[in-house]
């Protein structure tokens, strides 16, 4: 997985898919994406409000294929109920990042102050480290990490983005 912003934007598609919550659905989606020469940049999965349905948010590099192939190939999977390509749509997108910093003394104070100013949050602290979190659009998370890098990031966990169209017409089944 690499940083999408390094590539021409158009090849990257942001899609959400409502899928049946069956064993193996993730394998099907991931397998199809690999098989077709696409590449997953970001993926998150969670339950929807409806029993037996999950929502996947995918950021996919269409590779050498036409960009609409990603949605069409996802749609062919029997257990994929609905796919929306949000790339060109007005959408809301959030990603969560947990960052562990090995900081002590005055350096720690400076780091925590920066986190505060940015709107991040300290969620854990020990003698030798703090863990901070931030959520937001992809770019905001990137800027946050840029800010913290000088302090020495020892561990980083990112959720991958979840996304939703802001248009009213979007139907939920």
């Amino acid at each position, binding site marked *: 997985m690499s940083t999408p912003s390094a590539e021409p934007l158009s090849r990257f598609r942001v899609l959400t898919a409502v899928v049946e919550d069956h064993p*193996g659905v993730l394998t099907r989606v991931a397998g199809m994406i690999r098989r077709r020469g696409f590449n997953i940049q970001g993926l998150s999965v969670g339950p929807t409000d409806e029993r037996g349905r999950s929502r996947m948010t995918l950021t996919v590099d269409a590779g050498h294929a*036409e960009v609409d*192939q990603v949605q069409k190939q996802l*749609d062919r999977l*029997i257990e994929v109920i609905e796919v929306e390509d949000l790339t060109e749509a007005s959408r809301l997108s959030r990603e969560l990042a947990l960052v562990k910093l090995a900081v002590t003394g005055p350096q720690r104070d400076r780091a925590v102050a920066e986190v505060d100013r940015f709107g991040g949050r300290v969620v854990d602290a020990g003698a030798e480290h703090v863990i901070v979190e931030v959520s937001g659009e992809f770019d905001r998370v990137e800027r946050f990490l840029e800010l913290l890098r000088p302090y020495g990031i020892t561990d980083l966990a990112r959720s991958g983005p979840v996304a939703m169209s802001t248009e009213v017409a979007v139907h939920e089944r």
Partner: protein
Amino acid sequence: MTGAEIVLEALQREGVDVIFGYPGGANLPIYQQLPRYPKLRHVLVRHEQGAAHMADGYARACGRPGVVFATSGPGALNTITGLATAYMDSIPMVAITGQQNTTLVGRDAFQESDVIGCSMPVTKHNYMITRVDDIARVIHEAFHIATTGRPGPVLIDICKDVQQASCEPVWRDAIELPGYRPAFTPDLSRVREAADALSRAARPVILAGHGVILSGGQQELIALAERSVTPTGTTLLGVGAFPVRHPLSLHMTGFMGTGWNLKAVQNADLLMMVGMRVDDRVTAKLSEWAPNVETFIHVDIDPSEMGKNVRPHLEVVADAKTALREMLPHVQEPKPECRRPWLTQIDRWREEHPLKYTRSNGHLQPQDVMIEMYRRCDDDAIVVADVGQNQIWAALWWNYTRPGLFINSGGAGTMGFAFPASIGAKIARPEKAVWCVAGEGGFVMTAQELSVAVKHRLDIKIVLLNNFSLGMVRQFQDDFYGGVRSEVDLTEMPDFVKLADAYGLPGLCVERIEDMPAAFDFAERTRGPVLIDFRIDPDANVYPIVPLGKGLNDFTELPDEYA
């Protein structure tokens, strides 16, 4: 009922009459019950790959889904090539495999393998059943998925303890698959536009693929081609969709297509692609394909085919038969003078680039064998070809005056397909003559199924085009790989007459053209399987051919000095 009984009962309810299978540890409960279901005819194969190809050939010949049984582990894995073959060519099949007990799955138990994982990329869908209550529903869904929309194989992996468990099955007709929406309502919004464009074009061409045959749209295709006066060719899998001796026929397209077809495609201003994937074997070098086309029309049942390889100007997402039928009334018959220059030009190309083959070098030529075979087919027999030179010779010399059935593994290109597929075809259509055309290399890959043909006295005429080498690979090495003949020699092959004898069917060997008619006479007289080993010219090549990596304009033909 036990799970095993539910499986068999469900198959009966789906109208299954034949199962191609092989028993083993993990499907024993099903086989224990099988004798109690005499309406389900079981064909015991000699290798599970054979079962898959037989089911495939069965489905291609009659349109009903082919059914396969195999046990877990190696049994199931042996079907993979057959599933891939069916998947590439959109053939409806249902494979039911045994699996280890639910309690042992994931523990590397005996004959356990991840059949779901292995078959996922080569099936339209697959299921693993771990609860007996799911069997009835899943089998019904599997048949629905296999046969609707763009057809394809579905695999069902059933744990052995589930086959032995009991429940009262609930037989529902309704299907609840919220994510499965094949093109039930065809999108015909562009049909009128497509028909207008076709009528207006100066140099139109129709290319017809497998989708025309799968949808049974041959007559609709002929009607549309005739009304719009459009020269019409087929893909390799579309051979049979349009009569080759029709005045508008362009015969086969693609990198081993006929010269006049390729000339027409390269000069057309409109190309309508019906029920085809526009794959690399059709286009050769894509950037040089059909450079003069101003309007691409693509008709296919699968929306993902639109723009996958070629971005059409007009998309019709519908099955070929429906789309062609709906298009017909909108087609304005063009004035004769509008089409005459184009048709005249194509006639000229047909004369300038006829199919040619080497004659009178003393060897029996494969084309001679094909011409004689088709003469005897009388526009009626089913011809099943293997993969390689034999496949192209059988396709190019197919010469029916009306649509017919030409079966081959066009997408996957599976050697060893033809013979077991011809068994399936014969079982599906016992009233039809079935001819199997194969090279000796592909034939021995699945030759063990001869026992099946003998056991069931299947009237299959095996035409072996034997050049004692892997001919297509040899031709590629000669022409495109510096003439280095590497590992293509098949001199050490069985004596096929003795092989036939060992399996209990008559076999003949023909080395001279003079002996050919008598051998065919014998084959036609013989009831049950018969094998003819035609010893053909070892240097016979497929022409025309587009050099690998080149565009269709660069097709090469048999040099005149050999013709």
